[in-house]
């Protein structure tokens, strides 16, 4: 079977990548600032809701229901989309999905397509596949554009350029757009507007993802902020939507739950600026050709795991990334996948489906099991339990290698504040763990952490509580 492009070819294992990332103080500064901002705003947006917990429970239950009768619901979706003039395609893996999209572009004689941000297309490496087939994909989401123009890789599922601050973005725009622009966010947004305007007005084919698909009506839902989504979903003649098979909700009513959970969890807004809903083709309004590509790419394999399958409930809000102490320290690219952070640590290895792959197998260890991700997850994915479960699978697949032992030890130290403090006082975490001879330093050195070393930690304090208290002061 072909390799799943959900992980980037040649990526080092998580600890090795994290070690490199940790040397980048600019990166850590950018991440601390961005995630700190969004954490506070999300907490406020959620606190406003008296029924948040009930919404989370409903979100969890609706998604579990979807997973329990996915075959029936997919057939229902196919029927409703087809009845409204859309064409449904099925793809077992990334290569098959990419081939379908490329063929559709070729059938329209398109040499360029505009794209609205989509995790599914990033997961399957669609842009690269289209490029190889002579079709250039233009990313239109601001953060995706920053990544694309910077020849960079994404580091966050909502804001792929979160690792870039405004002056770095300015530098990329000046270099690639050939314009003079200040580092004011409003000016940077204006530069993107001008740069993309003609593309929106003239490109004939658009590619999108989907946040939700409603099985009983065939309606597809995309949430966005900038209006680039509306441009792509409205102006071209042909629209190709690529969607993971788990993105379903059974009925229109179910959306009332997710349209409340998702914006507050992701951008900390009561509602995101724009949400588009379309069903097949509407004569006289929007694209007159609509293709829906349903992709498996490891999802059905994930579905067989009774503990791991809850990762398929994910609505890609990114709240778990924003609260994760490990993510904040290492950045998203260390995970070697389009899905970083806590959700990446459980979803990526399952989509890869091979615990003998050292990189994928290292991901379940990229966590201190502090539980912050579960607390914020709008669909109540118990990420810590899945991590523990996957670690056991790694050990089963590979045996207790020196690396997995060291990784487990690192995770064990991170799980307790007092153990962590002791390890630090012993000199460095690296030395504490150096005995196996293969790990010369820990992925998380103390440089930034040492600033809080003199904060006394009560022995019974959990790492979570300790982290909460300390990160706010930095």
């Amino acid at each position, binding site marked *: 079977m072909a390799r799943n492009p959900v992980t980037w070819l040649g990526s080092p294992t998580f600890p090795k990548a994290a070690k490199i990332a940790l040397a980048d103080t600019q990166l850590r500064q950018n991440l601390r600032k961005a995630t700190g*901002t969004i954490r506070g705003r999300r907490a406020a947006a959620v606190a406003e809701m008296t029924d948040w917990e009930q919404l989370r429970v409903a979100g969890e239950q609706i998604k579990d229901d979807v997973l329990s009768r996915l075959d029936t619901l997919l057939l229902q979706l196919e029927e409703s989309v087809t009845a409204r003039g859309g064409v449904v395609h099925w793809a077992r893996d990334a290569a098959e999905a990419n081939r379908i999209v490329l063929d559709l572009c070729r059938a329209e004689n398109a040499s360029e397509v505009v794209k609205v941000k989509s995790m599914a297309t990033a997961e399957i490496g669609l842009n690269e596949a289209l490029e190889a087939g002579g079709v250039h994909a233009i990313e239109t989401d601001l953060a995706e554009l920053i990544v694309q123009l910077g020849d960079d890789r994404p580091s966050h599922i909502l804001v792929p350029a979160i690792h870039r601050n405004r002056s770095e973005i300015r530098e990329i725009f000046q270099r690639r757009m050939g314009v003079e622009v200040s580092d004011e966010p409003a000016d940077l947004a204006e530069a993107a507007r001008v740069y993309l305007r003609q593309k929106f007005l003239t490109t004939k084919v658009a590619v999108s993802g989907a946040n939700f698909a409603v099985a009983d009506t065939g309606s597809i839902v995309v949430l966005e902020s900038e209006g680039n989504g509306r441009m792509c979903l409205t102006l071209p003649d042909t629209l190709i939507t690529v969607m993971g098979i788990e993105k379903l909700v059974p009925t229109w009513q179910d959306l009332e739950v997710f349209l409340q959970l998702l914006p507050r969890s992701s951008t900390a807004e009561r509602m995101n600026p724009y949400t588009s809903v379309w069903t097949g083709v509407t004569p006289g309004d929007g694209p007159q050709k609509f293709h829906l590509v349903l992709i498996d790419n490891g999802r059905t394999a994930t579905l067989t795991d009774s503990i791991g399958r809850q990762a398929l409930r994910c609505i890609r809000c990114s709240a778990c990334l924003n609260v994760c102490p490990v993510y904040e320290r290492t950045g998203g690219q260390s995970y070697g996948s389009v899905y970083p952070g806590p959700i990446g640590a459980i979803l990526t290895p399952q989509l890869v489906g091979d615990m003998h792959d050292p990189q994928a197998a290292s991901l379940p260890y990229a966590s201190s099991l502090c539980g912050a991700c579960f607390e914020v997850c709008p669909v109540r994915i118990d990420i810590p339990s899945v991590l523990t479960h996957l670690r056991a699978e790694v050990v089963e697949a590979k045996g207790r290698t020196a690396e997995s032992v060291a990784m487990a030890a690192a995770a064990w130290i991170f799980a307790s504040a007092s153990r962590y403090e002791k390890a630090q006082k012993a000199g460095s975490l690296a030395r504490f763990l150096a005995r196996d001879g293969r790990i010369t330093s820990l992925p998380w050195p103390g440089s930034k952490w040492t600033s809080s070393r003199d904060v006394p930690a009560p022995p019974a304090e959990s790492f979570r509580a300790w982290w909460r208290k300390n990160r706010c002061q930095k």
Partner: protein
Amino acid sequence: MINAAAREEILQRIRDAKVPAAQPVIRGYNQKGPGGVELFAERVADYRAIVHTVSNVPEALTSLQGKRIVAPPDVPEEWLVDGVTWLREPLSIEELDQADGVLTGCAVAIADTGTIVLDGGEAQGRRALTLLPDYHLCVVRADQIAASVPEALQRLEPTRPLTFISGPSATSDIELNRVEGVHGPRTLEVLIVT
């Protein structure tokens, strides 16, 4: 059917996974909310949109004087006040792009979230009309304001092309802070008619 083999194989894999039946969904969350014109106005304004509560639409359109404004085919005649160059369908993409603004009604609004929903119905036109002009003036009747998201979805017909609008276009992509004004209309003005 384009690739029947892939379809069959995926469906079979799903069945082979034998996922047990799920619990019935408990909808313990709020179906309703306080609602009302005031809450709606406040929440729209939170997105840095401009909001007015008016009793008469034509009188509130003075700011459009001298401008080139798109009006969907079925806007009420009385909205088409003198002194404005009204642009009517059929309009090309270029004409829409060069317009100063667009005047529409809406299908539903949501007080709880300060959202306006367009469905291509009366006084709204096709989606491109409210997308390309840089300024969107939207008329919301008080009776169109639903209190909550659940209530709004009940009022909507899902198979129509829907656009939920909450403030002017914005981005959170630079350091995760909201900045208004990217590709969609950079100014959103809402007239609430009571």
